[in-house]
């Protein structure tokens, strides 16, 4: 037990001196990096705008209320598009995500040295890039519209679903797999009777969870032209029609809350 003597009194310490010193150095370095970063941010900021922010905020708030309720009539169609982007995008992602997950899981991959790293690279690339960036790319390639949104959501979701699914596959109970193998089952039969029943609830939960996230993300895809309610948001922000922006926010908020409730209920029922 590390003990320090101060003026003849033995005082208990939680860590030995070397580890304490290391901890302090870590804190010092971390603080230095944060302070330097803050100074860089501060140098790039127009502080007159910042001091003005409370006034601007109050002004913005006064322009935003009351929301333009009549505008809702024009929002149902974009909202339907948004729901479709999220749902079809999620469905489209599930198809490639399942084989990728089986190729990436240590206990089901055909080759741990060749195929597993490739599957992991697919997962990392898909996960590192936000759906809004995928949407930027796709709008520039296949043109603005709902399809770009669906593909963007799908590309981002593949990595997410595949990662969580392959972790679930790696955590399965080995006994059923061995039992099925012992009956003389082929590789496909082992997967469909030994592994799939064990990961099916997890898979359903992951899919619904991602769908919930995708609803949230699809509401802003329109900002870069990929369809849905974000298009209306972009148009309203561009012409500074703040009462319309408020209306869109209220609708988006309601949709997100409902989708979160649905997802929580479904996951609760499965698990």
């Amino acid at each position, binding site marked *: 037990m590390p003990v320090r003597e101060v003026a003849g009194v033995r005082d208990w310490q939680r860590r030995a001196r070397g580890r304490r010193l290391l901890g302090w150095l870590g804190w010092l370095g971390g603080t230095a*990096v*944060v302070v330097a*970063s*803050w100074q*860089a*941010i*501060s140098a*790039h*900021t*127009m502080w007159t*705008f*910042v001091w003005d*922010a409370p006034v*601007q*905020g109050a002004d*913005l708030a006064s322009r935003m209320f009351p929301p333009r309720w009549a505008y809702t009539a024009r929002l149902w169609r974009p909202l*339907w598009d948004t729901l*479709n982007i999220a*749902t*079809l995008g999620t469905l489209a992602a599930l198809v490639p995500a399942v084989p990728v997950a089986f190729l990436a899981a240590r206990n089901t991959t055909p080759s741990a040295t060749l195929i597993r790293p490739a599957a992991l690279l697919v997962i*990392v*690339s898909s*996960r*590192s*890039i*936000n759906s*809004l*960036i995928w949407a*930027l*790319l796709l*709008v*520039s*390639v*296949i*043109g603005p*519209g*709902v*399809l770009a949104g669906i593909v963007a959501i799908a590309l981002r979701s593949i990595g997410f679903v595949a990662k969580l699914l392959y972790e679930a596959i790696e955590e399965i109970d080995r006994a059923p797999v061995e039992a099925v193998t012992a009956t003389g089952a082929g590789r496909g039969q082992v997967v469909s*009777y030994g592994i799939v*029943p064990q990961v*099916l*609830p997890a898979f*359903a939960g992951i899919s619904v969870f991602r769908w919930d996230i995708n609803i*949230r*993300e699809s*509401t*802003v895809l329109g*900002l*870069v032209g990929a369809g849905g309610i974000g298009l209306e*948001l972009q148009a309203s*922000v561009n012409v500074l029609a703040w009462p319309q922006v408020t209306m869109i*926010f209220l609708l*988006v*908020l309601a949709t*997100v*809350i409902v989708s*979160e409730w649905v997802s929580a209920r479904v996951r609760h029922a*499965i698990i």
Partner: protein
Amino acid sequence: MTGAAAAARRWAPPPLIASAWLRRGLALGAAIYLALALGTLRVNWRRVWEGLDRGGAFVVGFARPDFVSRWVEISEGILEGLVMTVTATAVGILISVPIGLGAARNLAPLPVYLACRGIVAASRTLQEVIVAIFFVAMFGFGPLAGVLTLSFATVGFLAKLLAEDIEDTDPAPAEAVRATGASWLQLLNYGIQPQVMPRLIGLSLYRLDINFRESAVIGIVGAGGIGATLNTAFDRYEYATAAAILMTIIAIVMTAEYGSGLIRRRVQ
């Protein structure tokens, strides 16, 4: 049981949804939804067909990324993104800790609990990009709006998970510390903090990673970072530059993930 009856009965694994009616109802509902959704999908297939060449150009761009011709913009954007990430994560942690303490039912009285949970819920329901639009409108273009956005998003994530972790702590050490006559702060310092610290460090590192990914996005609406450069590259069809930026992002995310995995394994 006769042999014929046994042959006619085939075993099948039990379905995921036990109730047959619910199963059929869900399938029917899904079919109707799919028909409606695909039926109302408006896609300009000619534009998609024409765009496939550009898709090819992008794939070629990935094979030969161009780091050179826009190097100044790329390096400045990435550096700004990193700086924003570090600042926003630090600020976010500083705000999350008190709110996380307040949102833990075993530490905070009910009014404080409800207020803190309200802040967490607000932060979690609002999309980063939407928050960024607001902060840009209020604070002007630039990285400060981005830092504020990411800090706000960090609070929703970190305070919620910290509060749940505090609620899951073993009450025995806290009780023992309280029995010595410790004050509330001493209770936190000796009873709670040692239990939640490893997880808090792990979550903070994870959030650092998420914040970097998000910092690339909020630049699209003018909140600093690499997003604006990326947007311009796509608008000008400079796919080799765009590919270079994306590859840099992926490389940084991979490094951060690997590094934070190492640190988390040491502290946990």
